[in-house]
């Protein structure tokens, strides 16, 4: 039974399909893009590879850097919100009864059963001026106005209900990112809380700590690997998103992802788009190195 593990050939055979797939359809195309990022446009489709750095110089133009910082800010805000929402959820699932646990986990991953484009469009239906958030608010307004009428205070709520502009701004983009990527935060948090030895929490209580103190001094520090993974899994795709900002954002919600998309499509400037993509990719590498460093430190703790 054990012998096949010792044979190196088995590992090669098992990994071959995935490695081949990644090589042919990920690494090699990525290499093309990398090469293109050093090229110049020579016609509608032709690109000369001249190993110029002009595209990178263009990519760090102040205009794009401004978009880049906005993307950074929106991704960071979305990630923090997702973390704050996901932690209690993950905590609740961890401590749910064994019967309830799989159902709750299923609810977390259920949105994946629907295409992301459709889910994002659905958000438009929710947030638009005559969407159901505004519809509900209007009902509340009418009920409030009706209730205040006998007191002659109906005017207090204004002449008529003004729908809120919930769509086509940065808040809507943040909302969309949190909504779409929340499961990526919940699942790693859940995985690390699930591994947590319950007796550590009991020991903290036993030593006189409050539930509050136990949470911040024992639970959170021990969930750091999950927190870091969750942040990576939300922050990195949020940095590159263009669909959510395209559908839910307004003219001032353009993110770096939208710019890159436009270079490849409307602007037909592949070299610039490629250079921008790679700058984003390098940032991701830095984050991954940071995570590896965190993991190494945590392994040191046992």
């Amino acid at each position, binding site marked *: 039974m054990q012998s096949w593990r010792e044979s190196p050939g088995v590992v090669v055979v098992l990994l071959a399909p995935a490695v081949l797939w990644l090589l042919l359809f990920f690494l090699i195309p990525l290499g093309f893009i990398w090469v293109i990022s050093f090229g110049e446009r020579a016609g509608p489709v032709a690109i000369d590879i001249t190993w110029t750095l002009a595209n990178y110089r263009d990519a760090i133009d102040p205009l794009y850097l401004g978009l880049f910082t906005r993307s950074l800010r929106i991704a960071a805000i979305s990630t923090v919100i997702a973390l704050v929402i996901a932690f209690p959820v993950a905590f609740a699932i961890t401590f749910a009864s064994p019967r309830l646990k799989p159902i709750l986990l299923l609810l977390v991953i259920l949105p994946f059963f629907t295409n992301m484009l459709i889910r994002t469009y659905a958000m438009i239906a929710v947030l638009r001026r005559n969407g159901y958030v505004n519809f509900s608010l209007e009902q509340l307004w009418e009920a409030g106005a009706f209730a205040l009428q006998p007191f002659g205070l109906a005017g207090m709520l204004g002449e008529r209900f003004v729908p809120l502009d919930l769509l086509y701004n940065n808040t809507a983009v943040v909302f969309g990112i949190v909504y779409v990527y929340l499961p990526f935060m919940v699942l790693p948090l859940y995985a690390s809380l699930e591994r947590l*030895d319950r*007796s*550590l929490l*009991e*020991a*903290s*209580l*036993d*030593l*006189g*700590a*409050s539930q509050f*103190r136990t949470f911040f*001094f*024992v639970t959170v*520090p*021990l969930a750091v690997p999950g927190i870091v993974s969750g942040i990576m899994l939300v922050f990195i795709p949020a940095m590159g998103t263009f669909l959510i900002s395209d559908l839910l954002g307004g003219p001032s919600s353009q993110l770096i992802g939208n710019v890159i998309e436009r270079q490849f499509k409307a602007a037909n400037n592949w070299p610039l788009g490629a250079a921008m993509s790679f700058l984003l990719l390098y940032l991701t590498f830095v984050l991954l190195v940071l995570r590896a460093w965190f993991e190494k430190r945590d392994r*040191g*703790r*046992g």
Partner: protein
Amino acid sequence: MRPPIVSIDGVTKRFGETAAVDQVSIDIQANEFFALLGPSGCGKTTLLRMLAGFETPNEGRILIDGDDMTRVPPNRRPVNMVFQSYAVFPHMTVEANVAYGLKVEGIGGAELRRRVDEALAMVRLENFRARKPDQLSGGQRQRVALARALIKRPKVLLLDEPLSALDKKLREQMQLELVRLQHEVGITFVMVTHDQEEALSMANRIAVMDHGRVLQIADPRTLYEHPTHRFVAEFIGTVNSLDVEVRSVDGPHARIRHPLLGEITVERAAPDVERGVVVARPEKLRLDFSAPPVDGEILLDAVVEQIAYYGDLSFVFVRCPDGTALQISRYNVNRQDKGDPAAGSLCRVGIHPDDLLLVGTG
């Protein structure tokens, strides 16, 4: 007598239909080293967790130093626990682990330093204060757990199978260490264990539990020599149990009949024992006849079936003509000893009625 430091009063804890702890009442005196002993699933850990506050009884009360603690949360009880897994915080140094319980109380500065030094010295970990738990051995981790609990100066220290994760040599060493610590700090220790030798050698008093009930509470010697239940006799040490017919009872004695022993008078374990089995410890039976026979001894013919040699002592398994199996232990007291009888040889077993005890089977 002083009021008990821990008073468990008719406590029942049910998980669904089954009662994990069933109508248990125990009083534990201050400065006692008390052991809750029983097989796994007997309810001993649940009882300990109710003392710590991690479980709430369905019925009954728990008083600690006279105060009703039945529904008080664990962080407001004057007790601390050493967990089976030790539950040492992996993200904190030894020092931070030990200091945790005092920092929670708002103690800091010089007093914190002094008490942490004191606690680390007590468990001999002064040179390990900056280490992380994963750089410690199992025994050292346990000392951290002990120091972390004792630094709080609890009224009662609860120990959940404290030695089960250690290897044999270290376990024996820690047994002595724990008893020494208990004398030194003068705190009541309540220990849960499934290991009868551990309980006998460490505790002043032991409660033997089975199926959620307490069968007997006594000091180690009484438990061993005067068990009241067949379960207690068989769980603690090794015992020969013989089904007998009780002819009559009279105060502390009973007249019994057994095909091998005939009709004899033996001691009764408790006044309510009117039927049951007669038990005899293997070392109370005699196989060596170098010493002169004792007055009143009953001699039985038997065949040696098997011998288990442990070095310091041997267990000899014999069978009597009527099929009754007995085991006899004999100490290998000197090196010139001729040794154990060979398997298959005939022998005689000496039993004295004074060494027999009638115990209940309930």
